[in-house]
């Protein structure tokens, strides 16, 4: 090389220059890496703050204060004719039996107001628990049984420390006399925090101590099954068509823009669409997971399509050439070589889309899934709600005890999310490779 430093000032070799610039570049490199690490940490930090705040608020909901009461199941109160007829047993006034047992425990309480407060110590659900017990085993009639029933939510809150015993009487929902009774019950070992099975096995209720997540969870599962089984194949198919097979013309441009645009449509508008099209035109039943699934499918579809297209785009053309060059049809090249390579990206899109669908409330509002539904749905046609709706509704309820249940429901939702994603994440890892 005759004049290597033509572009450089006299005397400076290019390596000297590189060396001179190194300190700055090294610093830039370090900065960049730090920024990356910082970014990931910020994201994770934020996540952990959220998680910690959720868990710390919600974990107590997995326990529930139960109260032991002794009930005299007098035959004349329940089944005076002794028929043991189911309808008779069902109609009997169990709540007065429970009231009686409360009176027996605190014979000194008198006055309508006080009695009223006393009865309020046990949950409204106790009478129904008792009824179910008697109907299951009519031989109990005529005996005195001792059973654990859920305590009222205020008692529960007190036991868990969410109501301050030392606050001024005016500042708490539990007045002094009631506090006295509770103390007495505690001293008699009649109050106990127990694992809250009902939370996982029951549907919604307006009594926090009876409210469970099962109905919403089942609704979510049904809804997401519909969503996943429609949106993944549809999304991938659309992406594959647009990226691999479609002629590039105005029409496909239009579809592309359309899809990008659908991603920006507010989710509640998809609810309007569901109402107008699926309910009013196709006559699908309101509030059904099938309907919710369809609406959420339309909502998540753009996410999956866009992610899948990005993934397909990044498969190098040489792979397609290789397959085509030995006589594979475009379909075969796509199926055997391109899609496997793009699958991680497609799965990411699905994970994110499903996560979004899992957390969405607004579109469900329009199609009747933001509702009080006590029965656990049995299929995709039964009316049901979904977990985020349950969370939303509980967060909006006045009763203090719903605060912890809201957080607990969020924990269940996140657990479900984690479970759902686990499969996808494992699959994605399997297909990931660099070449």
């Amino acid at each position, binding site marked *: 090389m005759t004049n290597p430093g033509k572009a450089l000032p006299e005397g400076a070799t290019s390596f000297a220059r590189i060396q001179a610039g190194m300190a700055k570049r090294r610093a830039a490199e370090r900065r*960049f890496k730090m920024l990356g690490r910082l970014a990931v940490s910020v994201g*994770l930090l934020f996540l952990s703050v959220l998680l910690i705040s959720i868990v710390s608020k919600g974990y107590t909901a997995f326990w529930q204060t139960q109260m032991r009461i002794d009930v005299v199941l007098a035959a004349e109160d329940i089944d005076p004719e002794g028929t043991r007829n189911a309808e008779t047993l069902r109609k009997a006034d169990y709540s007065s039996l429970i009231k009686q047992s409360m009176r027996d425990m605190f014979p000194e309480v008198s006055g309508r107001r006080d009695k009223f407060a006393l009865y309020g110590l046990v949950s409204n659900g106790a009478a129904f628990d008792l009824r179910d017990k008697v109907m299951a085993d009519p031989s109990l009639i005529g005996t005195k049984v001792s059973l654990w029933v859920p305590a009222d939510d205020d008692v529960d809150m007190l036991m868990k420390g969410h109501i301050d015993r030392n606050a001024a009487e005016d500042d708490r929902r539990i007045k002094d006399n009631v506090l006295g009774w509770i103390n007495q019950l505690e001293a008699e070992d009649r109050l106990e925090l127990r694992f809250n099975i009902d939370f996982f096995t029951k549907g919604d209720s307006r009594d926090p101590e009876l409210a469970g997540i099962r109905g919403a969870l089942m609704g979510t599962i049904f809804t997401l099954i519909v969503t996943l089984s429609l949106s993944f*194949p549809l999304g991938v198919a659309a992406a594959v068509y647009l990226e691999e097979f479609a002629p590039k013309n105005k029409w496909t441009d239009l579809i592309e823009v359309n899809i*990008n645009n659908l*991603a*920006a449509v*507010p989710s509640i508008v998809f609810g309007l669409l569901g109402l107008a099209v699926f309910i009013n035109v196709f006559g699908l039943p309101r509030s059904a997971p099938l309907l919710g699934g369809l609406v959420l499918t339309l909502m998540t579809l753009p996410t999956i399509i866009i992610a899948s297209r990005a*993934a397909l785009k990044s498969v190098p053309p040489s792979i397609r050439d290789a397959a085509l060059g030995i006589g594979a049809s475009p379909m075969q090249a796509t199926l055997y070589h391109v899609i496997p390579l793009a699958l991680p990206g497609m799965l990411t899109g699905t994970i994110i889309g499903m996560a979004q669908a899992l957390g969405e409330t607004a579109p469900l509002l329009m199609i009747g899934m933001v509702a009080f539904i006590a029965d656990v749905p049995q299929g995709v046609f039964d009316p049901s709600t979904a977990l985020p709706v349950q969370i939303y509704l509980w967060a909006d309820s006045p009763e203090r005890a719903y605060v912890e249940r809201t957080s607990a429901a*969020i924990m269940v939702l996140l657990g479900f999310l984690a479970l759902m994603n686990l499969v996808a994440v494992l699959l994605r890892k399997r297909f990931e490779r660099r070449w």
Partner: protein
Amino acid sequence: MTQTPILLVLLLALTSAAYYFGCKRAFRVADGKIRKLHSLPGYYGLYVALWAALPALLILCAWLLFQGSIITRMVVSSLPDAIQQLGPDRLNLVVNDIRNLVSGNIVSGEPDAIMLAAADYYRGLLSVSRNMLFAIVLVVAGLSGWYGYSKIRVQHRARNGVESIINWLLVACSTVAILTTVGIVLSVLFESIRFFQSVPITEFLFGLEWSPQIALRADQAGSSGAFGAVPLFAGTLLITFIAMTVAVPIGLMSALYLAEYASARVRAIAKPLLEVLAGIPTVVYGFFAALTVAPFIRESGGFLGLDVASESALAAGLVMGMMIIPFVSSLSDDVINAVPQSLREGAYGMGATSSETIRRVILPAALPGIVGAILLAVSRAIGETMIVVMAAGLASNLTANPLEAVTTVTVQIVTLLVGDQEFDSPKTLAAFALGLVLFVVTLALNFVALYIVRKYREQYD
């Protein structure tokens, strides 16, 4: 209805059989020499299977779609005249009662003889229909399967046939997007038109004040009810902008870090964790933004002597940005990971540092995918509601100051739709108009984006 799964299973069995025999026949016509065939035997199998399944499925769907109304009509015509005179709405309730009787549900009162008879008739029709459906579907599947079967020749282009069917299926899948768009437009259009009849479209589009305080009626010209959408769009823009200034740097840097620097273990853990952020219900974010971030901003603002509203665009935008991090990070990470290793080596081989390689080689190569991810994130930010309702309030302000309260289009749509006012008031109708205008605006923006991306991509692709 409950028998449909059984029918589907039968059909599936038939289809599998069709596949099997298709393959077998292909073998036979080729005398066992596959290479004599035009396509792989599996394609012949698929060909026959598709013939067997598709027509039958079409009939099944049509049948299920129309069976209900036909049976209902027949039952209704069997009812006494007095009931038939009731008019469609009432009749519908009677039919519901009959249906409840048929399916053994609890009914409203003691059923009378007419109802019981009708229910019996209904039940009978239902079982006839079911049997006919079974017969027809299976026969059609058999016949059409046989047709496909009989077409198998050595030179029959089964692969092309199957592939073109698949191609049409793919086309159908991608038109779902178009149909959705049509559906959306139709479901907001009529109400929007009604809205524009009471509020001039120009006022709506260019009005600088949004204050649906007082229902707008003809006799109320002087009131302050104002439907100028500009502040809403400005608010949307502001919050989206704030969210993106959080999500894009953090998301992109995370993606780059995870794809290029992090060890496989860190990546395997951190990526799914970040994805959890997208799945946390927005109510949670809303509470977090309103109760933790907003007060923090207000206090630190007060500390600096700034006047910060207790509900600020900043709080909502920041938290929203956090929520959409995974949209940027995970999707970008995937496309970055897919950049061929040889490009990295090319840069490293000349003494580029990792960051230089990333910025100058990998990012440009992955750009189309990253742009897609960012557009998706922007879209998500535009469509988000709950966080803004809870943290940025509902008051519309035409401002670029992130420390003030603003509101967004979607927030207004939701609050207008679920509010208390009468449903034909301009307030409710405004929600539809907002939806429509937002749709059109984003559509236009997307066209612009497509154009820009195209132009920019031409340099690289």
